[in-house]
């Protein structure tokens, strides 16, 4: 064992850089956050696989870490616990002080409010004083003043006032002194109470006490009405007490030592019990600028405050007037000095204690670590020596612990290492040769060259005079031809020896071939003397040749030499086979290459075909999508045509009829003028018609029976007049109005025929009525066209705020011809919730509604019920369209959202409808689900209110690949991964 000091200096000399780099320490705390860096020498071999030479001799890293760990382990918890303990003590003491202050405030406030009540009681006493009341009732001001003076004697420090019934002060006294002395330069806080809110309340018969700020001083002021027995208001009595030193002293007395009381008016000090060092009373500390009075609000808050250089904790609570408005603050201060001193002492003790403990712990842990790491260091040194190759190093550690065991294991390990190393050196030599031969035979495919290089290498490695390989030719009995020779030539004479070795069937080593009975003859024939080794070349148990090495009288071959030769023999045999195989392969590969060229040409042609087919398929898909759109439009147009056509036809018919009516009206006018009625009557007639116009437009027509009955009655009415029957039947056509105006018509006509007038009236009525009908018809055409206009904004619409209900309603209008309301048609139930507008592509959404509703109608064969439900679900809008159709069979499940999937007859649908719906919904960031069972199929569309998420356009486009973009320009195309429902039948 080398001595330690020397090793230390060695280490310093040899590894200054690695030693410095081993730890990267964060300042101070080495153990916890040290980053271990791998020393360079671990990754750096000195040469080849051999041992490192530049090893550090000695380390103290372990010891340092151990001692740091010990310090942290021993001291850390102690320091932490003491910190926590001290902090807990501080905080509980702090809380104690806060609690004391708050409790003090509570007590002080209770006491203070009691004093306020006493002031109120004083006022009540005034109100009950009969002498005062009598004087007031008699308006004897001087008597009242005198009496007030008497009453004020008993209560020092209070101002007594009385007012008249109008609130004017008529007397003011304090401690028996009245009026003059008080006006103007009165005592601070006792300024006149005129216009005080409490007086105003007292004038309204209310007894009130309040805390008020009067001329920047806080006062308690109580007022009550003075009334006579019949409650006539005589005036008010007011008692005012300033909140001054007397009051705060009183409060302090109840709180005990170490407590001070302070009162603020607004934020300004009003009175306090604080004393300056000179013994003078302080008005109170100024509030810190950042102390927000309103924030003190309800309850109390404790604030640290320094008064005259002395620390206090002050609990503040608001003082409020009778309207609950804040007028000031009441503070109770608790002396913090004892706490501050204790805190400072404890801090010092803690710091000194911690430092002392740290020093002690470092010393102790260093000692301990040294003891623990000594054997380890010895072991380390021994291991390093062994690592340098000094396998004779003796590790002398005899401690009976794990380290002792480790040292013993080291010793055993060293021994076996030494033994192994020697064997290893020999083996290495062999391996190197084998490697070289192996490289030669495996890289050369020409047999002759292989054999040549084998014999050359063998001769070089084994150090003989001659080496030769003979290969068998022909079949049994084996004949051998020498194919390669190195060193001294042996030539064809070697063949018999080869045959003899082959006959032995195994490798042969002989010290002197002359003495070998089995080989002597053949060896001599070959001109060989001395030591010979020979090995057969066998390939798959077939003898293919022999390799022979001779030394011609030199040192004999060892067993290792023979082992090497056998290895060479195996490799040579393999090489022979390789060479043969190579020849065959080359021939085969030429054929193959020719075939590959031919195939490649064919494939290129096929690729061109496929590309063309794909292009055509793409075009076909585009065409199909276009036809789906067209199909939708066709559906629309069919509906619209029907819807528009009926009213248009009606309008056409009515307009024709009106033209005819106008013509007849001309005739009537002529007939009318032919009657030659007095102008007054004519004017009256036209007035009558004007007045009736609105009524005529809306008047219901009579049934034919009613009309006949009416005509009969009218005939009776017109009896005896020309054209009675004609007039009666014409008026009957006008409905109820006819009968009403008949008497007047008769009167207007006089003896003349009322028929022209009746005729005129009839035509006018017809015009009025049909005009209404035409208006309605045009209205319904406009409604449909409007819906169509909104609906058909298919692709060009940008993202916008969309009213989902309007879209559904438009769709229903457009599909109305398929709905055929009535017993036999499709009944649509709406259960609409209150929806916000959503951000969407309006045209595309309409397409979704159309597809789903149209599908539902078709699924039900035009008979049944569709329930459309809408509601808001969190940030989504949920639209469900439910039909009472037969449901979707399970075998069609999961496929209905696939493009081109349809169960309809060929030509009926493109099979794209639902897949397009799914794409549109998904593009909006929503989902489309289906849920179907017998008699109830629900499609649920979920759309985010805020519209589609900003999708990564490029990525999505790449994903859908060959699918033609279907959506509006600018929008990301929907991906094909919509979520199909559990069961389905194609409805697309």
């Amino acid at each position, binding site marked *: 064992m080398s001595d330690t000091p020397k090793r230390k200096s060695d280490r310093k000399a040899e590894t200054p850089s690695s030693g410095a780099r081993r730890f990267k320490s964060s300042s101070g705390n080495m153990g916890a956050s040290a980053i271990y860096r791998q020393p360079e020498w671990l990754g750096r071999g000195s040469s080849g696989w051999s041992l490192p030479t530049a090893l550090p001799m000695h380390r103290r890293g372990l010891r340092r870490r151990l001692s740091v760990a010990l310090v942290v382990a021993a001291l850390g918890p102690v320091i932490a616990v003491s910190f926590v303990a001290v902090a807990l003590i501080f905080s509980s003491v702090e809380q104690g002080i806060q609690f004391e202050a708050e409790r003090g405030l509570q007590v002080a406030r209770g006491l203070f409010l009691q004093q*306020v009540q006493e002031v109120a009681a004083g006022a009540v006493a005034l109100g009950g004083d009969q002498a005062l009341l009598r004087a007031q009732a008699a308006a004897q001001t001087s008597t009242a003043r005198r009496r007030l003076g008497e009453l004020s004697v008993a209560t020092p420090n209070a101002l007594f006032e009385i007012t008249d019934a109008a609130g004017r002060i008529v007397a003011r006294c304090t401690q028996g002194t009245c009026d003059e002395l008080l006006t103007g330069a009165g005592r601070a806080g006792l300024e006149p109470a005129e216009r005080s809110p409490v007086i105003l309340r007292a004038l309204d018969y209310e007894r009130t006490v309040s805390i008020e700020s009067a001329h920047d001083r806080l006062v308690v002021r109580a007022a009550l*009405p003075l009334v006579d027995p*019949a*409650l006539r208001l005589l005036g008010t009595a007011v008692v005012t007490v300033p909140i001054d030193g007397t009051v705060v002293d009183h409060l302090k007395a109840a709180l005990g030592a170490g407590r001070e009381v302070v009162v603020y008016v607004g934020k300004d000090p009003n009175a306090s019990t604080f004393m300056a060092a000179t013994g003078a009373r302080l008005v109170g500390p100024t509030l810190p600028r950042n102390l927000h009075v309103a924030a003190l609000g309800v309850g109390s808050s404790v604030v640290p405050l320094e008064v005259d250089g002395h620390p206090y904790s002050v609990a503040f609570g608001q003082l409020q007037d009778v309207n609950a408005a804040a007028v000031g603050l009441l503070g109770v201060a608790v002396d913090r000095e004892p706490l501050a001193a204790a805190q400072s002492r404890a801090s010092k003790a803690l710091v000194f204690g911690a430092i002392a403990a740290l020093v002690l712990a470092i010393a102790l842990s260093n000692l301990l670590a040294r003891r623990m790491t000594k054997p380890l260091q010895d072991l380390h040194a021994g291991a390093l020596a062994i690592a340098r190759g000094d396998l004779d190093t003796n590790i002398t550690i005899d401690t009976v612990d794990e380290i002792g065991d480790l040292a013993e294991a080291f010793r055993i390990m060293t021994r076996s290492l030494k033994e192994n190393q020697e064997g290893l050196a020999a083996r290495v030599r062999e391996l190197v040769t084998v490697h070289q031969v192996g490289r030669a035979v495996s890289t050369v495919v020409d047999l002759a060259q292989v054999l040549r290089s084998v014999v050359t290498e063998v001769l070089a490695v084994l150090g003989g005079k001659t080496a030769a390989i003979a290969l068998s030719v022909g079949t049994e009995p084996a004949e051998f031809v020498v194919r390669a020779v190195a060193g001294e030539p042996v030539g064809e004479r070697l063949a018999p020896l080869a045959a003899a070795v082959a006959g032995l069937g195994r490798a042969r080593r002989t010290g002197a071939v002359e003495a070998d009975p089995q080989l002597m003859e053949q060896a001599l024939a070959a001109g060989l003397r001395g030591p010979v080794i020979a090995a057969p070349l066998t390939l798959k148990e077939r003898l293919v040749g022999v390799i022979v090495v001779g030394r011609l009288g030199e040192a004999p071959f060892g067993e290792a030499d023979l082992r090497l030769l056998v290895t060479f023999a195996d490799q040579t045999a393999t090489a022979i086979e390789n060479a043969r195989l190579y020849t065959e392969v080359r021939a085969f590969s030429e054929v193959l290459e020719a075939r590959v060229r031919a195939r490649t040409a064919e494939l290129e042609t096929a690729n061109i075909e496929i590309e063309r087919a794909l292009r055509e398929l793409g075009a076909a898909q585009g065409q199909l999508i276009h036809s789906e759109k067209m199909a939708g439009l066709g559906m629309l147009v069919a509906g619209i045509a029907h819807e528009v056509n009926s009213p248009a036809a009606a309008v056409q018919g009515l307009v024709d009829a009106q033209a005819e009516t106008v013509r007849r009206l001309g005739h009537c006018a002529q007939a009318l003028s032919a009657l030659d009625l007095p102008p007054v009557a004519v004017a009256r007639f036209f007035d009558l018609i004007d007045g009736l116009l609105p009524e005529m437009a809306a008047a219901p027509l009579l049934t034919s029976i009613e009309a006949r009955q009416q005509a009969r009655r009218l005939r009776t009415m017109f009896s005896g007049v020309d054209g009675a029957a004609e007039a009666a039947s014409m008026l009957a056509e006008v409905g109820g109005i006819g009968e009403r105006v008949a008497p007047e018509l008769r009167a207007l006509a006089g003896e003349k025929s009322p028929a022209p007038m009746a005729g005129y009236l009839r035509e006018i009525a017809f015009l009025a009525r049909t005009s209404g009908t035409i208006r309605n018809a045009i209205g319904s055409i406009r409604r449909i066209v409007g819906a169509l206009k909104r609906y058909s904004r298919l692709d060009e619409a940008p993202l916008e705020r969309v009213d989902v209900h309007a879209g559904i309603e438009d769709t229903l209008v457009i599909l109305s011809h398929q709905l055929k309301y009535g017993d036999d048609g499709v009944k649509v139930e709406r259960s609409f919730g209150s929806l916000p507008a959503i951000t969407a592509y309006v045209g595309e959404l309409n397409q979704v509604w159309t597809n789903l509703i149209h599908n539902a109608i078709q699924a039900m064969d035009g008979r049944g019920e569709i329930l459309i439900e809408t509601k808001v679900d969190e940030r989504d809008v949920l639209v469900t369209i439910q039909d009472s159709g037969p449901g979707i069979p399970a075998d069609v499940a999961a496929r209905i959202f696939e493009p081109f999937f349809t169960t309809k007859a060929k030509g009926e649908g493109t099979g794209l409808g639902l897949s397009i719906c799914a794409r549109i919904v998904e593009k909006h960031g929503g989902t489309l689900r289906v849920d179907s069972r017998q008699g109830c199929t629900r499609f649920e569309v979920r759309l985010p209110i805020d519209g589609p998420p900003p999708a990564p356009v490029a990525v999505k486009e790449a994903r859908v690949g060959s699918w033609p973009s279907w959506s509006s320009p600018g929008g990301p195309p929907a991906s094909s991964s919509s979520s199909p429902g559990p069961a389905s039948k194609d409805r697309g």
Partner: protein
Amino acid sequence: MLAFAALLSSAAACQGGQGGGVGPADRLVVARSTDAVSLDPARTNDIESLEVAEQVYGRLVRFAAGRLEPEPDLATSWTVSDDGTVWTFELRPNVRFQDGTPVDAQSVVFSFERQIIPEHPNHEPDFAWTRSYHNIRRVIAAGPLQVEFEIDRPYAPFLANLAMGPAAIVSPTAVRKWGHEFGRHPVGAGPYRFVEWIPGDRITLERNPDYWDQPARTRYLVLLAMPDSRQRLQALESGAADVIQQLAPDDLQLVRLHPDLRLVMTPAALVSYLAMNTQRRPLNDPRIRRAIAHAIRTEALVKLVYQGLGIPAIGPLPPNVWGARSDVVTYPYDPAKARKLLAEAGWQGAREPALKLFAPSASTQYMPSPERVAGVIKNCLAEVGINVEVILSDPADHQRALWAGEHDLALHGWFNDNGDPDNFLYTLLDSDNTTGSRPSNIAFYSNGWFHDVIGMAQRTTDRTERERLYSQAQAILAIDVPWVPLAHSKVVFAARTNVRGLVVQPSAMGLYRWAEHPP
């Protein structure tokens, strides 16, 4: 170091807060002047017991928060037969009593039958309300969740009666189990369940998590009995109580000035009035009654005597009773007009005999100092030439004198039972109630028109129609002036300022379901 800091702060937090369990925010403490007597709704007729029962039990209908108006409770809807005598209630499904017994038609029938049928196995002779239900003929379970009440004549206020305390639905299981002791182990279907009762000290209730309506905000409700009003106020100041009841009038000022405390007030379902004996000379002359109404400084009187705890009354109905009308003829203080009216009626002034004014000698629930009120009235009337002789007697004698009709004038008051206008107008002013040994109409007011209107209102269940009829009735009263209505008292609770959601009912009970106070 950071770890230390975290440790410190968490340690400090542990110290500051409560170490788990029930924090003050989970408990609402209410201090009241007296303890409850019994928590069996069939027995309770004191306000303290009724208030606890209000929290523990559900009823078919309950009074809406802050108003004496029935709203669905355990019944979701109801119908009345055309003849007005059969009321059918549909019960709320899936409601359970706090002991798990389902609330069904049988339990409703049980709750009423044990009170109205003396032979019922769970009837007790001391049940307080048996007589109040005399008009119920039968209670039938018409279905699992349907109950029919058959009453002897059409009677619209019946619904309001079912919202009152004794109409609470009790758990039949619990009643059978505890028998006479049920009053100490109440089980209902209200917002709170009973936990503990330390007589003379406290009643503790816990939130019923299965309450059919929104569960109570605060977990525990503790009702303390604290007879001394000063002590109650101190408990409130110190935070030992969150809410106190029965405030001493002098302490109102203190609460007003205290920033941590506030008053919670609501007009009570109560009226105090000066009744005039309308069947005796000289007050059978409405002109003299009107003169008296004009002669009294009512508003000043209410302000001075009630000290902010009363509002001047216009008519019998407090403003928060439905149907109350404020636009009737009033008689403001006007001595000149009073003198004129008296002259018209031929009033002889000092030569007339003095009117006898009966007043109770001590404060009553409806009037703080009747003696003072009587004095003021006497002085006011003297000013217009009416002599009054005040006769003070203790409340019991006072009541007897009024029943006997010995008075010309009388101070009296009425605490409404069920929030129905009928309970004021019919009880206090209908001619039906002028006779018998205990007439409740102590003005002996008898007006056929009024009687018809009130009768019609009783027989119809149409709310709008009833409102119209009561409006008419109040107009009749305003013209006839059988009373000088004086005041509606206020119910006053004081609470700590941070208590939110406290509802004081006109019945003087608190509703604590919504009350909470963040720490």
